[in-house]
C-alpha cells in the first residue's frame, strides 16, 4: 500500500471549548497506481482526510503511513519535506496565483528545492507541451481560460514528478466538458503509474470508469452502505 491509514482520528482545538472532531477511526489503504475517490457532503471530513494524506498535518491519533513513512508526531518541517517529494496537489478553483505567469505558477514548487532557473523552465516547458498550453507560458494566469487554468494546475502538481496526486473538489467550478477533460487527464496519469486520490461529490468524478474505488465519508467516518 502506498497510502495506509489505520484508526486515524483528527481533533481540532483538542481540549478547548471549541474542540471539533473532524475524523474518527478511519481505516483506508490505497494501492500504488490506483485512483480513489473520497465522496461525501461538505463538512464531512474529506478535506481533513486529504490534508492528512497530503502531509499537511499529522493525525491526532492512529497510524498514517504515506509512501512508507509514518506521519504521526512528525514535526511540521519534515511533513513539508515529505510533501514536497511525494505529493502533488490540485485544489478547488485550482488556487493559481493570477498575477504570476503560467510558467511561474507551474514552477512554484521547485523554488524552495533550489532547482536552477534553466532546469525549472525546461521541466515546465515539457509539461506545457504535454498539456498543449505552451503558447500560454508567458501569460498572466489570471488571463487564461478555465480549461487552460485546469491544465496549469495539473502541470504544477506534476512538476516535481511526485508519485501521489491529491485533488480537492477539482470539478466543483467546471462545466461538464471541462470536468470530463479533467478526468481524462487523470486517467492518463493513472495509466502512467501515478496514485490519485480525489475528494469530490460530483457524480462525473466518482462514477468515472477510471475510479477504482469510491470511499464515502460521513460525519468524519467511513460510511459502509
Amino acid at each position, binding site marked *: 500500500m502506498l497510502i495506509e491509514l489505520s484508526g486515524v482520528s483528527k481533533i481540532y482545538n483538542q481540549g478547548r471549548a471549541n474542540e471539533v472532531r473532524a475524523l474518527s477511526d478511519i481505516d483506508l489503504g490505497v494501492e500504488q497506481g490506483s485512483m480513489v475517490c473520497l465522496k461525501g457532503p*461538505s*463538512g464531512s471530513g474529506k*478535506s*481533513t482526510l*486529504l*490534508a492528512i494524506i*497530503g502531509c*499537511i*498535518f499529522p493525525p491526532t491519533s492512529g497510524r498514517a503511513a504515506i509512501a512508507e513513512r509514518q506521519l504521526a508526531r512528525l514535526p*511540521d*518541517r519534515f511533513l*513539508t*519535506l515529505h*510533501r*514536497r517529494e511525494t505529493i502533488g*496537489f490540485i*485544489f*478547488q478553483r485550482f*488556487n493559481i*496565483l493570477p*498575477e*504570476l505567469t503560467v510558467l*511561474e505558477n507551474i514552477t*512554484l*514548487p*521547485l*523554488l*524552495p*528545492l*533550489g*532547482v*536552477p*532557473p534553466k532546469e525549472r523552465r525546461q521541466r515546465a516547458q515539457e509539461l506545457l507541451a504535454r498539456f498543449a498550453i505552451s503558447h500560454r507560458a508567458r501569460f498572466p494566469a489570471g488571463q487564461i481560460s478555465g480549461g487552460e487554468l485546469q491544465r496549469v494546475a495539473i502541470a*504544477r502538481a506534476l512538476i*516535481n514528478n511526485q508519485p501521489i496526486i491529491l485533488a*480537492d*473538489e477539482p470539478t*466543483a467550478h467546471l462545466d461538464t466538458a471541462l470536468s470530463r477533460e479533467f478526468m481524462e487527464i487523470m486517467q492518463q496519469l493513472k495509466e502512467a503509474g501515478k496514485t490519485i486520490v480525489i*475528494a469530490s461529490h460530483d457524480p462525473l468524478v466518482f462514477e468515472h470508469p477510471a475510479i477504482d474505488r469510491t470511499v464515502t465519508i460521513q460525519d468524519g467516518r467511513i460510511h459502509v452502505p
Partner: protein
Amino acid sequence: MAQRNLEKQLNILDYALSSLWRRRLKSLSVLLVFAAVIFLLASFQMVTKALSDKAREVLVHTPEITLQKMSVGRQEAIPLAYRDRLAGIFGIRRVVPRIWGYYFDEVRLANYTVMGMAVEEMPDGARLDTALASGTMPGPAGQGLVAIGQSIKKALALEGRTTFSLFRPDLSLKAFEVSGEFSPDTDILTNDLVVMNLADARDLFAIPAGLVTDLCVYVANPQEIDTIAKKISETMPSVRVLTRPQIQKTYQVVFGWRSGFGSICLLTALAAFVILAWDKASGLSPEERREIAILKVLGWQTSDILVVRFWESVIVSGLACVVGMTAAYIHVVYFAASLFRPVLMGWSVLRPDLHLLPRLAAGDILLTLAFTVIPYLAATVIPAWRSATVPADSALGG
C-alpha cells in the same frame, strides 16, 4: 548541497523581487516615504558633519588666544596697555589688537560683522590674502579700504561699484572702498564680514584711542595654549580668555545641538513610519493569506516565507537608503542644504551661500542604517512571522 542551498536562496530572492514588482504601487509608495525620511535624517547628519569640518578648517586661521575685558558680566573695551602686562608671560609670541563689532544696516535689516585688524602685526598676516577670492587685505596705510564677504557684496548691491558708506554713531557717513573679496570657501566665517584696518574700525565705531575690543595672543608653541591661557587668567582675572580649541568646540556644540534638535524631530517621523510599517505588516489581506497557504501546500516551509518577507524588506529599505542618502548628498553638495539652512545657520538675513562637501565616513553611513533600516526590518519581519504561520490547510476546501 551548498550549491543547492545557494540556488534556493537565489530562487527565493527572485520570488521576493517578483512579489515586490507585482505590488509595485504599494512597494513604490513605501519606498518613497521611507526614502524621504532617510533623506531628511542623512541630510541633517551630512550637513552637520560638513559644517563642523568646515568650521574646524577655517578656524585654524583664528588667533590661538583671544582676550576680552569683562565688567559686571558684560564685555567692554580692553586697554591696549594690557599688552605690557602680558609681556612677562613666557611663551607668548605676539599680542595683536583687534576691534570686533556689529554694524546694523537699518535699510536692509541685516547685521554686518566688522573687524578692524592690524594685519601687519599678525604672524600669519601675509597669508590672510589666501582667504580672498580677489584683491588684497587692507593694510595700515590703506585708509578706507575693506575686504568684504560674499553676502555683504550682495546686500550692498555693489555689482560694478567698489565704494559704499556706513554710518558712524553720530550719523555722519564714512566712505569705504572694496580692496578685496573673501573666497566663498570661507563663507562660514566671512559671509557677513567687513575687514578694515584698526584705525578705520576705531573711527567707524568711535572707539577712543588706547582701547580695542580684543587682544589676540599668538603663542610660540601651540601645545602650550592651555598653559599660557591659564597664566593669563591668573595674571588678569578681569579678562575673559578664549582659546582656539574652545571656540572650535563652541561651533561643534552649536551645530551638534541644532542637528540634534532637528534629528529628534525627524526621528519622531521615522518612529511614526516604523509604527505604520509594523501595522501594515501585521495585517494580512485575504489574497496574501491565500498565497501563503498555497505556497505552503506546494512545499514551502514557514522559514522560506519568512525569508521572502525578509528579502522584500531588505530590498525596499536598501533601495530607500540608497535613494535617500544619494538625494541627501545632492541636497547638501549641490543645493547647499537649502532645506535646513535656517535651522543650522541661524535666522540671520545674511545667510552664507555654503559650498559644503561632506566626508562620507563608513561610521556615519552605518549610523544612518542603524537608525533607519534596522527598525524597518524589525517592524516588517517580526510581524511577518504571524503571516508565515498561516496553516497550509486553509488552501483546501471544507
